């Protein structure tokens, strides 16, 4: 892999949460929240991580941010392993990587004013709060579209959208390289959601941020992402360029997921794939392909053998080199792809 362009490289990342139970409260079983994920995020790119609740997407985000210790696997930032850092080293890492959370109310200290919330980072990292005579906090507030008088206010005095702006200001305050956005707009109203999406787009362009966008909302992911990875029960089932995934989803789960988004246009009618049942528990994932219990195309092999991510042959626009080709490739983990002819013309959006 080309080290110049890949900022973040995940290799076989696993995160199991032990469940204690039984008479002596011994370790009974594991919840396999993330079960062997490999991904690459390149510089200045946005990778959208999509999946339903419980698929492990937030856990993966937290693993990358160093909030959870990995069970197995490595995470490399510019080729340097960051998955087993000590707390002092983590502090240095946080200068380069920041997180935006879903609920802007829960993630801001309600007893601190906006100024205190934004100052905290400069104090922790012992950095000057003035650069070339300009107050950093004023500059930040301006950047995220908050008035100067917001400094002295408390989080509860703001609306959801404004609180999310404070959260974003806090995340970008030390010029990080990578931002992990965990459901940044799902708690917001439609009209405010678009304001925040615009802000994220503008900031990313301006600061050259590399983003990991975690969301269940496929239309949001599509709008912001260059690449998309679809997760199901702790595993990546499909990755590829955003347009390639949307226009030609390969995995039956991705197909169902895309077909399930209601289109805000009554004139567009589409054949909807309605999946049966719910996501099984990650405590006890089904054997073989984890999706086989809900898959409309499940075969015998799916119940026994776990499919691996395989490249789907095809040409993709904008490929320049071999490295590129590897990165741009559309991959899916499904037995169907290797056994059956995939109808490339079938479109789901």
């Amino acid at each position, binding site marked *: 892999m080309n080290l110049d362009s890949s900022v973040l490289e995940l290799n076989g990342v696993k995160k199991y949460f032990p469940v204690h139970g039984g008479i002596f409260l011994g370790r009974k079983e594991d919840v396999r929240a993330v079960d062997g994920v490999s991904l690459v995020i390149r510089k200045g790119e946005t990778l959208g991580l999509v999946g*339903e*609740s419980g698929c492990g997407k937030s856990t993966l985000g937290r693993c990358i941010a160093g909030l959870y210790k990995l069970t197995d696997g490595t995470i490399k930032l510019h080729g340097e392993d960051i998955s087993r850092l000590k707390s002092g080293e983590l502090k240095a890492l946080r200068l380069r990587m920041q997180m935006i959370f879903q609920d802007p109310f829960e993630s801001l200290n309600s007893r601190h004013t906006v100024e205190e919330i934004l100052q905290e980072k400069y104090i922790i990292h012992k950095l000057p709060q003035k650069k070339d005579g300009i107050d950093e906090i004023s500059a930040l507030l301006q950047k995220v579209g908050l008035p100067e008088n917001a400094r002295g206010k408390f989080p509860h005095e703001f*609306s959801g*959208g*404004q609180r999310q702006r404070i959260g974003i200001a806090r995340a970008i305050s030390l010029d990080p390289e990578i931002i992990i956005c965990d459901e940044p707009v799902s708690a917001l*109203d*439609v*009209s*405010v*959601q*678009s*304001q925040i*999406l*615009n802000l994220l*787009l*503008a900031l990313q362009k301006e600061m050259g941020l590399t983003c990991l966008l975690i969301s*269940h909302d*496929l*239309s*949001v992911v*599509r*709008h*912001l*992402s260059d690449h998309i990875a679809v997760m199901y029960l702790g595993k990546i089932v499909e990755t590829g360029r*955003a*347009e390639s995934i949307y226009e030609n989803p390969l995995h039956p789960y991705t197909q*169902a*997921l895309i*077909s*399930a*988004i*209601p*289109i*805000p*246009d*009554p*004139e567009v009618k589409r054949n*909807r794939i*309605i*999946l*049966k*049942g*719910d*996501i099984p528990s990650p405590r006890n994932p089904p054997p073989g392909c984890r999706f086989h219990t809900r898959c409309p195309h499940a075969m015998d092999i799916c119940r026994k053998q776990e499919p691996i991510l395989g490249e789907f042959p095809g040409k993709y626009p904008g490929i320049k080199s071999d490295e590129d080709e590897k990165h741009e490739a559309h991959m899916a983990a499904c037995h169907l792809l290797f056994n059956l002819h995939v109808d490339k013309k079938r479109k789901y959006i």
Partner: protein
Amino acid sequence: MDESAPSQSQRKNSMDESAPSQPQRRSSMDEPVLKVKDLVVSFGTEGGKKHLRAVDGVSFEVKPGSTLGIVGESGCGKSVTALGIISLLPRPSGYIEQGSVLLKASNGMKTPNGMKALNGMKTSNGIKAPNGMKTPNGMKTSNGIKAPNGMKTSNGMKTSNENSGYIELMNLDSQGMRAIRGKRISMIFQEPMTALNPVHRIKKQMNEVHGLHRPSMGVREMTAKSLELLDQVGIATPENVIECYPHQLSGGMRQRVMIAMALASEPDILIADEPTTALDVTVQAQILDLIRNLQKSKNMSVILITHDLGVIAENCNDAVVMYGGRVAERARVETLFKNPSHPYTRGLLHSIPARAPSPGTILPAIPGMVPSLEEMPKGCRFAPRCSHVGDICHKISPEEIAIKGDHGHFAACHLHAGETGTGTV
């Protein structure tokens, strides 16, 4: 049940000013099952000193067997409207200040050919005070909330001709309302975990519903009925689910149980308040599909409350867009998406990423945010965020105006002043 027996002599006797295309030929099939007229719901705050109108003059009609969508952002009054219809407002602070909610009398009591006159709707309803003698849901008179104005309750409307064949829900006492609620109009809520009782098994909760509506039923019969209902809502193993506690079920399953309970008495109208907001997309698709199929098979009307325009586009026949407690626009769904006429509706549609011309473009967002009820602007409530705002918008609150060229399309915006489209929804 508190119903006025409609009489044959009360024929439609005058023309509607907005002249619908076939004024007299409205068969009873097309008659709306529910007519909400100028509904005003207020909340008393600060010990009854202040009154805030959460819903301010909302009118719409629900046609039989069709789905009406109410869409808007949080705080626009869409849920309060629904709670007002079935008198489930939080007491004692919430009350219906004025307005009328007319429910079509059930089949048995209906006159052969519907005889709804379309005129004079405005004169109909009496203003209701929370402590008037007709308390719609047994509201206490002691709570010190004073209705701001007029306390007359006119009962005369029950016999007025345009409403014959309809029951005025606002005139019902709590017992009368109970007979309607659950039986004729059922409701399902956003978070089924809070709507289900966590300490009782599904069986007990479902049987309770049957017991309330048909006290003569035996336990075995009730359970059989419950199992049948669970089967209808697509639960694969009803025998297992019925023995579960709510926490043992997934979100989608809980919502199915809620729907099964709501369907227990075969209601004419199902009000679904954000039924899929707490669910994942693939489960949302299942639940919406289920509601659609049940609606078809039972010829039920549905009021679907949501913030998602995609859900509206795919599931509804008619839509009401609400903003700040008022109706901004209402129309057939196709019309609404093709020819959005209120700047708010247009803004909403443009700001959805799914409708962006291409991914990654800056979305034309609506600036600012929804004002709180306390600081609602005087004139048009959308004026501070509107890109077409004029002087008049800050002074006068716009009335609903029929949009030219579209049938049954109304927008409350001064931009359309002077237009006379074909009225009647």
